[in-house]
């Protein structure tokens, strides 16, 4: 990280034009400048100047309510680096107040090796007996809804393996020479979405990539970084850089939130190693889309799909076209347009847990648009979004399932007999 201003300099370019206001989900929810990018930039500037104390409750309140979705960045004509500023501000706040117990507990439970294993095991047990209808708007029932939303298609991988890792069948015809990619497993993704990892490996193999497992990898550190625990995030980042080694192989990530941070390890660490690591990180849709041709076509799936681009993919990584290529490779599949698709769903990592009120307000708008679009499936490439959307759809009584786009391609390939 840049010595001295630690990311605050990313805010200097702001000319207060307000073009970001309508892109910001929290501003749309409350209409309050303090919940807008421009307002938060003022807060952060005041914090850096020392006009506002790092313990100022209102400052903390409004920065906590930021989803970190960075929808404000791509619309900014002045090129303000909001995300960097936010990280710097959150680091200051966290350093001063410490982390809230809830955040602490959540990060600990979800990302600590050993602990999280137990948590996820228990969660998987639980979700296998929960019906979709359990989801509701209260804290607990929404949470349970989120958990149910993590179920893989027909619980396939789980039914077969009880969630344990197994050899993925490879494609029947493999282009020669196959390239290799290293798979990033993450914590939540690994604990609850291992079926997405399996789908990732299978679909990549059809498209000429062999995936390698990398031992010793850790959580990406995004939850920590977003909670202002920059030092802990740095420890994790260093561990991952170590684990993935110095090779040139792409590192494939299927969780947009993880990918976004890993691509910015250079900024996080302020080290050349991190930058180099970052250039290797690829979202799974980037690899599958290849050099523009798009993935190998599969069998037709007669589905109406709404694509909900995760903020960390669309805004943070600026990946918009590649996921669409995945859908295009599935004949018959129809993408239904959704108003405000590019707006955040309100998940944002731990946000849904820590700021339920704002999170639900943002989610409600999204659900209204989805109800109108009436898809069968809502696809999104981030675990948090899938859980948030899944729980929200169920709670709102909208009949649509949530899937990672790779799962859909995987189904299409399976029907096409590519795995036989």
């Amino acid at each position, binding site marked *: 990280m840049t010595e001295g201003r630690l990311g605050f300099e990313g805010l200097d370019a702001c000319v207060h034009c307000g073009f970001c206001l309508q892109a910001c989900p929290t501003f749309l929810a409350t209409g309050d400048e303090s919940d807008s990018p421009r307002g938060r930039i003022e807060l952060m500037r005041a914090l850096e100047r020392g006009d506002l104390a790092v313990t100022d409750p209102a400052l903390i309140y*409004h920065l906590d309510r930021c989803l970190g979705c960075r929808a404000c960045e791509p619309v900014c004509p002045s090129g303000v680096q909001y995300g960097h500023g936010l990280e710097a501000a959150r680091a200051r706040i966290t350093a001063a107040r410490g982390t809230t117990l809830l955040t602490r507990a959540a990060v600990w439970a979800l990302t600590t090796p050993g602990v999280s294993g137990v948590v996820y095991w228990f969660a998987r047990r639980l979700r296998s007996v929960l019906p979709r209808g359990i989801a509701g708007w209260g804290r607990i029932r929404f949470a349970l809804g989120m958990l149910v939303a993590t179920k893989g298609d027909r619980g396939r991988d789980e039914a077969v393996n009880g969630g344990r890792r197994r050899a993925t069948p490879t494609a029947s015809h493999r282009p020669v020479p196959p390239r290799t990619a290293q798979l990033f497993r993450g914590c939540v993704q690994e604990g609850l979405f291992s079926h997405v990892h399996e789908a990732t490996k299978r679909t990549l193999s059809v498209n000429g990539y062999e995936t390698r497992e990398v031992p010793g990898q850790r959580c990406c550190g995004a939850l920590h970084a977003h909670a202002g625990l920059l030092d802990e995030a740095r420890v994790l980042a260093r561990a991952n850089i170590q684990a993935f080694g110095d090779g040139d192989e792409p590192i494939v990530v299927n969780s947009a939130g993880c990918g976004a941070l890993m691509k910015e390890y250079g900024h996080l660490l302020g080290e050349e190693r991190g930058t180099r690591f970052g250039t290797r990180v690829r979202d799974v849709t980037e690899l599958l889309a290849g050099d523009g041709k798009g993935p190998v076509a599969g069998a037709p799936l007669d589905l109406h799909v709404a694509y909900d681009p995760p903020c960390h993919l669309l805004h943070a990584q600026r990946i918009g076209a590649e996921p669409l290529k995945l859908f295009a490779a599935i004949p018959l599949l129809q993408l239904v347009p959704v108003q405000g698709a590019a707006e955040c769903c309100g998940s944002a990592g731990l946000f849904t847990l820590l700021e339920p009120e704002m999170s639900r307000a943002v989610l409600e708008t999204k659900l209204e648009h989805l109800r109108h679009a009436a898809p069968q499936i809502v696809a999104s490439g981030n675990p948090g979004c899938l859980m948030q959307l899944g729980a929200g759809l169920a709670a709102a009584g909208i009949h649509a399932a949530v899937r990672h786009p790779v799962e859909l391609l995987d189904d299409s390939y399976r029907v096409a007999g590519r795995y036989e």
Partner: protein
Amino acid sequence: MSSALARDLAAIVGERHVSEARAERFTYAMDGLPTHRRVPDLVVLPGTREELIAVVRLLAALGVPFVPRGAGTGLSGGALADQGTVLLVLTRLNRILQIDNANRRAVVEPGVVNAKLGAAAKPHGLQYAPDPSSQTACTVGGNVAENAGGPHCLKYGVTANHVLALEVLLADGSVVELGSPGGEPWGPDLVGLFVGSEGNFGIATKITVRLTPLPRAIRTLLADFTSIRAAGEAVTTIIASGIVPAALEMMDQSCICAVEDSVYAAGYPRDAAAILLAEIDGRNVDGVVAETEAVTEMLRKSGARSVRSAATEVERERLWQGRKKAFGAMGRLSRDLVVQDAVVPRSALPHVLETICTIAQNYGLVVSNVFHAGDGNLHPNISFDATDPALKQRVEAASAEIMQLCIDAGGTITGEHGVGIDKLRYMHLIFDAESLGAMQAVRRVFDPRELVNPGKVVPIHACREWTSIRNAKFGMRNDTTGFNSAFPIPHSAVEVTR
């Protein structure tokens, strides 16, 4: 300000819609022109018209002044509230109440974002023509208050030409309806008077606007020039020809480069001294084609190096996005920006533009021009770093000199951004004391106690006294001598900087 007041307000709008904390008030200290900074004492965000009325009645009863605010994209400090003043934020009043397809009009709440009204009209084959560059952010209420213009106002007219009727909440809490749905006034044109009054006559709570049919054919031309003068002359030629382009916009080199460096890069030639963006539209394809040819010819004859026509809708959109986001993109040039908004007779453009260059050179400053050339509405923007006091002084001197230049050319000090607090100091250059006094007197007809948005638009110290003004509402003689105001008039362009 007492927290008892905050409590009473919270009882009306709900606790979370009253901001009392210093940090929250900080975020409302500026509008789109951050060279001015005023921290309001209290911020209230009513969620309905009824809440807004109740809030204003409470404030009126207590005699507490207040300032309406839309999206806060204004460029004259109009939406800033001082100490002792409550800021009323109208962003939550954002419903489109009606789109009357057959009569081509819409009724909206003041907090509706300009572009969202446009989007709602589009499926009906209609548009809301005034398109300030800030349209993706600014509110219709703010547009009404500022009489906002935009690139396409050259042909379609500014906000004032599109507002048919208004429901206005006066400073004393009473509600009046101005104008009729057909646009014919009930007497003197109070709608026209209200539009552009910068929130000094009351708060627009319901706005009826005219919608116009979407054009059926649009041609967008990009012409590039190797000298600013040539581009200015091309504008004069086109205007004098009688063809009224839908838009005729100019951008100089420094601005072009800022845009090309931004996410809104539009493919403007970086080596051009200036570009003109001309758009011809209409309901009749043949007519549009013929006029486009004529304009192309005039551009060439005026010395355009190349004239390119947008081939697709995507390309057209890109050309416009570059223009509309140009002001924001100028944030790339430096920390701070002084935004100007003068209008000159169109035939004076070549001379004025050249002289502005000279002034900039004399002061060693970077001036970027991006503006509505067809209307003669200039926006020479000066980039600088406000942390350098010597530089700040030079910027101020140059600004004043540019303003004087425009006035001498027969122009005015603001074409669309309004006076607010930023241009108070120029008002006496174009209006004599009598005329300023008349304005102040009219303001007092609407708001005898000067409760709403005090200290804006009219530099009170420069007014000739209108002693015979009577208090309209109460029919009594107003015995205040002169127009005192608790709000000092700023004399410096860059008073408070971050």
